[in-house]
């Protein structure tokens, strides 16, 4: 117990960093991912191609490589970004590819008759997507989106290797200073992550029950 009292400040700051990194990156991923999904189902071929290219690049690149590119690669072409915004960007851009695929699967699950009917009523493509298709699509993709976002929270731990003092980065720091309390250090870090992921999982569960489409 003494260990947690002594190191409360360090763990709290690290927890808040992980939390804000998760929230900002999650927001970026949701907005960008939805946009990309819309592009992937759009009738405009170049948009479809661009979004497909984006998804394939980011989905098939390890997150560490994305981090390396943004933190160390971009400065080579004189685009220096701070470490925390760099981490938000890395995690957000990476996760957006997965959000895009989850949302797209939801869009495909909406019966084509819905889109055809709304076009027949005179709605534009954008309108029919916004007003008719996406609201139904999001309902079906709540569970997979929850998965993607929970995985993202854990992925933020890679930022520890790129100068963001988040939860995982306290592991080597606290272990070095308290070699005898290794298990407490691990426990503290695990609790920190669970404080984010468990409520998130619960929220997803509640949301799923609330908006589920009864078929």
């Amino acid at each position, binding site marked *: 117990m003494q260990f947690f009292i002594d190191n409360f400040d360090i763990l709290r700051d690290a927890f808040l960093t992980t939390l804000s990194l998760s929230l900002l990156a999650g927001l970026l991923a949701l907005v960008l991912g939805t946009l990309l999904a819309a592009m992937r189902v759009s009738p405009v071929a170049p948009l479809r191609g661009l979004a497909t290219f984006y998804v394939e690049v980011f989905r098939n690149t390890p997150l560490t490589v994305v981090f390396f590119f943004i933190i*160390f690669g971009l*400065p*080579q072409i004189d685009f*220096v970004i701070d*470490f925390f915004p760099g981490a938000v960007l890395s995690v957000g851009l990476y996760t957006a590819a997965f959000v895009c695929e989850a949302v797209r699967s939801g869009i495909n699950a909406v019966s084509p008759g819905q889109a055809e009917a709304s076009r027949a009523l005179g709605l534009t493509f954008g309108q029919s997507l916004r007003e008719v298709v996406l609201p139904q699509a999001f309902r079906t993709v709540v569970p997979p989106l929850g998965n993607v976002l929970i995985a993202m929270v854990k992925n933020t731990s890679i930022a*520890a*290797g*790129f*100068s963001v*003092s988040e939860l995982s*980065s306290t*592991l*080597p*720091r*606290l*272990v*070095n*200073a*308290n*070699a*005898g309390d*290794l298990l407490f250090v691990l426990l503290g870090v695990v609790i920190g992550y669970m404080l984010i992921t468990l409520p998130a999982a619960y929220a997803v569960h509640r949301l799923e029950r609330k908006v589920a489409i009864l078929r």
Partner: protein
Amino acid sequence: MRITRCAAALAVFGLALAGCSSEAGNQAADSAKNTAAVNTATKFDEGTTMAKLSEAGKVTIGTKFDQPGFGLLNPQKVPEGFDVEIAKIIAGQLGIKPENITWTETVSANRESFIQDGKVDFVVATYTINDERKKLVDFAGPYYEAGQDIMVAKGNPEGIKGPDDLAGKNVCSVEGSTPAETIRTKYPQAKLTLFDVYSKCADALSNGQVQAVTTDNVILTGLVAGAPDKFELVNNPFTKEPYGIGLKKGDQKFRDFINDVLQKSFDDGAWAEAWDRTAGKITGTEAPEPPTIDRY
């Protein structure tokens, strides 16, 4: 033709590796030639760790695999460096040949537990002796005294002379390392940037994302040697980091034995020789005065 000639040379001279082999082959031949003496006439008291290891004829030693000059894995997957040579000297005095040593990678976070669990017999891994660690393991030595120093961009554009000049500057180190804690506690004005490995600090310094890199001078020297046109060392060590040999707590006889072996290597020049062909080769410096062994 070259192969035939090489084979012929081998047949004639029996040791003609040098003529036709690669650089790596040369180094292997070098280190084979220079390997620490193996004491074949060993005699230890019944029941001691020395007797046990000597009897078995093999030993497991923990070292670093990523520290140029001290413990670095060569292309043949064998560690090389000053720590490795010191370990070979100790093994030699146990009557164990270098080829019977099993090298295990120990990193900063697992050294104590590896010793406590008996996964390694002892650890020679740029292991700073401090009171916190003494609670868990015992230390023989020190066999070398490093110090925390600062590395800056070539020409020192920020005019950094010592740790006090770091105030307000971005300083890079590795999370969980003692140098990072020193900056945190003693020089809180400096802005710390913490990665997981030092090579990233070097990248950040050459990109201008940080103005300085700080850790033990021996590590920095390795980085400067890798890119002498980009980095330079401030060369003003401001801490003392005595490197010791970690072993199981309470094994007083084994500790005394290692201390005796170290003292002997200080006196007969084996220590200085080990320095010259490992760390000394990278830093280009003469072997320093050996430290005083702390028989606490």
